[in-house]
C-alpha cells in the first residue's frame, strides 16, 4: 500500500458519491459501490485558527474508498484485456471546508492485502 497526498479531480454523482477520478492526467471510473467514512485530523497541529463558527471539517475529514478502472478499459476479465486492467483500490479524501480532493492511499491489488 502506498501513502500519498496528491491532488486529484473527482466527479461526483448528484448524491455526492465519486464517479470518476482524474489522477496525474489519467482518467479512472469508479466501478463498485464506494465506502465512505470520516477520520480525525490533528487540527491543533495543522490549523492556525479554530474560532467559533469555523463550521464542519476542523476535527475530521471525509474518506472515500473507491475501486476504479482506467477509463476506456472494459470490464475486468473480458476478452483482450491487458494484464494491468485489474481494478485499483484508492482512498480519497475530501477536505470538508475547501471541497478539495486528494489521493491518500493506493491499495495494491496485485499483492495480497495484509488486513
Amino acid at each position, binding site marked *: 500500500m502506498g501513502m500519498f497526498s496528491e491532488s486529484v479531480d473527482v466527479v461526483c454523482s448528484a448524491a455526492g458519491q465519486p464517479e470518476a477520478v482524474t489522477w496525474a492526467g489519467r482518467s479512472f471510473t469508479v466501478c463498485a459501490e464506494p*465506502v465512505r467514512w*470520516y477520520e*480525525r485530523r*490533528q487540527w*491543533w497541529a495543522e*490549523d492556525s*485558527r*479554530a474560532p467559533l463558527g469555523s463550521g464542519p471539517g*476542523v476535527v*475530521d475529514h471525509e474518506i472515500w474508498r473507491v475501486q476504479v478502472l482506467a477509463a476506456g478499459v472494459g470490464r475486468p476479465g473480458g476478452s483482450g484485456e491487458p494484464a494491468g486492467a485489474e481494478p485499483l483500490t484508492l482512498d480519497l479524501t475530501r477536505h470538508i471546508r475547501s471541497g478539495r480532493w486528494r489521493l491518500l492511499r493506493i491499495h495494491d491489488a496485485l499483492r495480497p492485502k495484509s488486513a
Partner: protein
Amino acid sequence: MSFTHLHVSTAFSAHYGVSWPEELAMAAAADGATALACTDRDGLYGTIKHLKACMAAGIDPIVGVDLAVFDDDGDHRTQVAGRVVVLARGHNNGAGYRALCRLVSDAHARTSGKAGGAVPAAVTRAELASRTLDPQTLKPVLTVLLGPDSDVGRAMGGRRYLRPRTLFKQWLDAMPAGTVVAEIVSQLSAPGTPFSTAHAVRLLRLAEEHHVPAILTNAVRYCAADGAPTADVLDSARTLKSLPELAGEPLLQPTGQGWLKTPEQMLGLGREIISAAGYGAADLKQLMAQTEALADLCRIDPTTDMGWKQPVVPEASVIGISQDPHAELIQRCHAGIGRRFPGISGKAGQEMLARLEHELGIIQNLGFSSYFLTVAEVSRMIQDMGVRAAARGSGASSLVNYLIDVSHVNPLQHDLIFERFLSNDRATLPDIDIDVESAERHNVYRRIFERFGSERVTLMSMQNGYRARGAVRDAGLALGMDDGEVGEIAKQLWRFSARKFREALQEKPELREFAGRVEQRDADGNQQLDLLVDLTERLDRLPRHISMHPCGVILGDASLLDRTPVQPSGLGLPMSQFDKHDMDPMGMLKLDVLGVRMQSAMAFAVREIIRIHPTKKDVVAAGKHPPGPDGTGPDYIAGDGRIDLNAVPLDDEATYELIRSTHTLGCFQIESPGQRELIGKMAPREFNDLIIDISLFRPGPMKSDMVRPFLEHRHGFAPEVYPHPDLKPVLQETHGVTVFHEQILKTLDIMTGCGLAKADEFRRALSNEAGEAQVEEYFRRNAKTKGYGPEVVDKVWGTLKSFASFGFCKAHGAAFAVPTYQSAWLKTHHPEAFLAGLWEHDPGMYPKRLLVAEARRLGIPILPLDINRSKAEYQVERIGSGNDAGRLGIRLSLNGIYGLSAAELKRIVAGQPYDSLADLRTRSRLSKPSIRRLAQLGAFDSLHREAGGPANRADLVHHLQQLQTANGARKGVEVLEGQLSLPLGDIELRNIKPGLPAPTLVENVRAELDLMAVDVSTHLMESHRPLLEKLGVTTADKLLSLRNGTEVLVAGVRVATQTPPMRGGRRVVFISIDDGTGCVDSVFFHEAQESAGPLLFGTRLLLIRGTTRRTGPRGISLSASMAWDLSRAESLPFPASVQSAAEDGPHPLDGISRTLAITGFNG
C-alpha cells in the same frame, strides 16, 4: 418528516456537552422535531433548563440521563463496564421522572462529594433493573438504551462475536421485560472502529436476533458541527491530558459527527446502516418508527409529570400544625400584635390591622400560608439554637414576617411596601433570606436536616462556569503548552469574559505584550497562541462542575427526593443537582441561610458581656444603660445580664453620637473610608438616616451624583425641589431625591393610579429596553389622563428611567441598617466585648491590627499573651492589679500564632494552668519551635516572674533556642503519665542564666508582627515618632481642627487601598493609613498618582503630603499631592539633619514580610 433525538448531552454535562439547552431546542424545532431529549451525563443538571427551552420552542421535552454502570463481574465499587442512556417514560403522573431522580441519586450515593474521589458516579445493574419498574404498578417507567458506549457496544471490536452476544443476553436476563432497547449509532468512523457503521450493523443484528427493538440516535454532543473542536478541548479538560496525548491513546471522539443532525441526515444514516446490514426498506422504516414510538412513550408533561411551577412546602404536620395553615397563620399574626405593638389602638391600630388584612389576603390568594409558616419555623428553630438570625431582603417589607418574628424591621414605621415583596401579580415563591452567625451556618444546616427530615431537605447547588482564567488554562492544557507560560498569560486576565479575549487583546494595556506575541506567529510559525485565543473563547461560560451554593437550602415535603436528584456535597450533606434558576420552575422552596461574620462577632460580644457581668445590675452599670421602667435597667437586658439585641430601641442618642463621630471602625456597613466620609457629611440622627445612608452608598447613586443634591437639601444649603406637590409625601424623606424602589412604586401609583402591585411589575420591566418602552407609553398616557402637565411627566419619567435600574429596595436597606445600628450600639456601650468579638471573627475589610489599634485609641488595655490566661479565643478580662486595676482589657488569644497547630492549641487550653515549662512540655506536648515562639511573644513572662531568677525574656528565648538546636540532647524533665509534678515552682526558669540585654519595645513589636501580624505592645508607628515630629507631621487626631485646604504632612501604616471604577475612566486611588491616633483617608487623583508612581501600591509605611478636605462637621480627608516610603529614609526629601534622625534605629517592620496580613493589601 421528523426525527426525535433521544440521546443529547447539553453543556450541563460538565466537560462533555458543548451546546446550551436553548440552542438545541431551537435547532430541533427548526428542523421540524416535535420533541427532544436531554440526557446529560451523570445527572439531571440541564434537565430543568431543557424543559424551559422546549416549552419556549413549542416542543415536548424528553428527560433522561447518560449513566455509567458498574461491572457486575469486576470490582463492584470502582470498575465501570460501560455507559447507558436511561429515559423516563412520560404521562404517568411522574412515575417515570420519579424513578429517574431516584436512579440518579443512587448513582451518586457512594461518591464522596469531593473532586477526584475513588468511587465514580455509577449504578449497579441491579439498581438499574429495580428502578425501571414503578414500585406501585410494577409497570415499566424507564427505558434503558444499550448503545456503542455500553459494555455490549464496547465489546464489538475485533472479530469477537460471542462476547457481545453474551453481554447482551446478560442485560436481557437482568432487566424486566420491555425496558431495554438497542441504541444504533454511527458517527461514520473508519470501518471496524467504535462508532462505525459496521459496529452499528452488528448491534442491529444482535437486537434483531433477540427481538429487542432498535432505535436510532446520534449520541449528540453539540448542536452543530462547529462544536466538535470544543468537544475535543472538553475531553482534554476532563481527562487532564493534552490533545496530542489523547490522540495517541486514542481517547478522542472518533469523528466530529456528533451533532444534532437533521431528519434527512438521520434518515440517510439509517439507510446506510440498514443497507450495510443487508436489510431492506421495511427494516429502515421500522428502525425510524421504533425511534419515534419510544420518543412518544417518553414525552413528558411538565405539569403532571414534573410538577412544573407548583409550589411544594413541608406538610402541615411537620411544622407542627393540625388546622388549616391559613387559619394558623392568622392566629400567629394576631398573637404577634401584642408583642410587636404593645398597647396599639385607635387609628394606628386600625391602619395596622388593615395592612395585616391586606397582606393575609394576598398570601391566602396565592396559597403561600404554609410557606410563611415554614420560614417562621426555621427562623424560630435557629433562634432556639441560640444563634442570631435576621431576615434580610424584601421580606422585611412584610408585616406578617414582622409579626411572626421572621424579620425584625417594622414595615409600618419605615413605610415599606408589601407589593415589593409579594403581590397577586407575582405568583413565584418569594425569597426570604435569613442571615445567621457565620460560625454557626453549618450547624444550622444540619439542624434543618434533623428538624424536617433528610427526605424533605437538600442543599442547593450552583453551576460554576468557565471564566477567562480557567478557560485559558484548560485551552493551554489541550494544546500541550507549557504550564508556566499559560500561567503567566492567565495571570493577566481578569474582569472580562473569555468570549471577548480577542477583543480584549486589542484594548487592554496589560495584554499588550501577549497581543504582540500572538501577532508574531507568522514570523516564527508559532500558531499555538492564536489557537489558544480561539479555544479560550470556545470555553467561555461552559459549566465546569457544580458545588454547594453558599447559602441555599431547599425545603419540601416527603416527595422532595422524587423531584430532585441529590449527590453528596463537600460538606457531606446531600446537595440537589438543581441550581437557583431551577427552583421557581420546579416549585421548590429555597431559603437562603447566609453566614454573616458580624452576626458571629455580635453574638460573641453578648456572651462576653454576660461572662464578665453576670447580672443585670452589672451590665446596666458597665454599659451606662438607662434605668428603665422600674429603675433596674431596660427590659432588653435579662436578669442574668443577657442583652436581647433585637429588642434594643433604635433611638439611642449615644449610639448616633458615636456614628456621627465617624469613629465607626468595626461597625457593620459603615466602616469603610467612603462610608466614614458619607456619615461624616450626613450626620445621621435617627434610624431612617441609617437606611438612607446605606442605600445611598452604592455604586449607582454614588456614580450618578445623587448624593450631593441629597446632602445639600438635607443641610438646607439648597431648597428642596419636587416635580409636583402630589409627590412631596413620597419623596420628602429623601429631600426630593428618588433613592428607593418603594418611591418609584408610589410615584407610578400616584401619577397613573395603576396600583402598587402593577407598579412593581412596571419597575421590573424598566430593567430592559422593550419593557421600558411599554412602561413609558403607559405612564405618559395615564399621567396625562390624570391631569399632569407634559413638563411634570417628562421630568418624572426621566427620573424613573434612570433611577429604576439602580435604586435600592428600602426594605433591604432597613434590614441592613439593623445590624449596623446594633454593632454601633455595642461599640458605644460595651466596646471591650465588641472589639473582642471583632478580633475573634474578623468580619470587616481591615487588617486585624487596625482594630487592635482602635482599642488602643479607645484606651482599652490590650493584655499580652499569657500561657495561663490566654485561651483559644479573645477574652474580656478585668485587670487585677497595676495602673489599670479594675478596668476591662482584652486578653490576646492563642489562636492565630504563626506555626502553632490547632492540636497544640487544643492541648494547651485543656492543660491550663501550668506551673512550669516542664509541666507545659509534658502535658501540652508542644513542639520546640512553638515554645520558643510563645516565649518571644512573652507568653511565659508571668510564669517567669513567679519563678524568680535574674534572667529576662531574651535570655529565656536564647535558652530555648539552644535546647532546640541541641536537638533533644537535653530534654526537659520527663514526667510519667499520671504522675503529679510537685509544686516546686519552675526550677528551669529560675536557673536560666542572665546576660543578654532585655528585648527592646521595637524588638517585641517586631516579634508580634512577625508571629501574629498584630502590633500589641505598642503601635508600630511609635518608633517613628521622633522623626515624624522633626518632619512636622500632623497626626490624625489633630487634622479635624485644621482649616479646609491646609497643606499637611501625614504618616502611617497602610490599612486600606481601593481603586473603585470611576465614571469618565480616570482612576482614583483611595489610601487610608493609621498613625496610632486614628485613620487618615487620602485620595490620589491622576496627577498625584503620576508623582507617587510605584509607591502607591508598593509601600507599607507612607509619608503623604496633601491638603485637607473638610467633608462634614466631623469629617476630614486628604487630597494627596505626593507620597514617600517612610522606611527608606534616604528617599525622603528633607535636610540631612532630619535624615540622620531617620536612621537612628531599627523599626518594627524591618525585615517583616507579612504585608497582606499587616496592611490588608499585597500590591
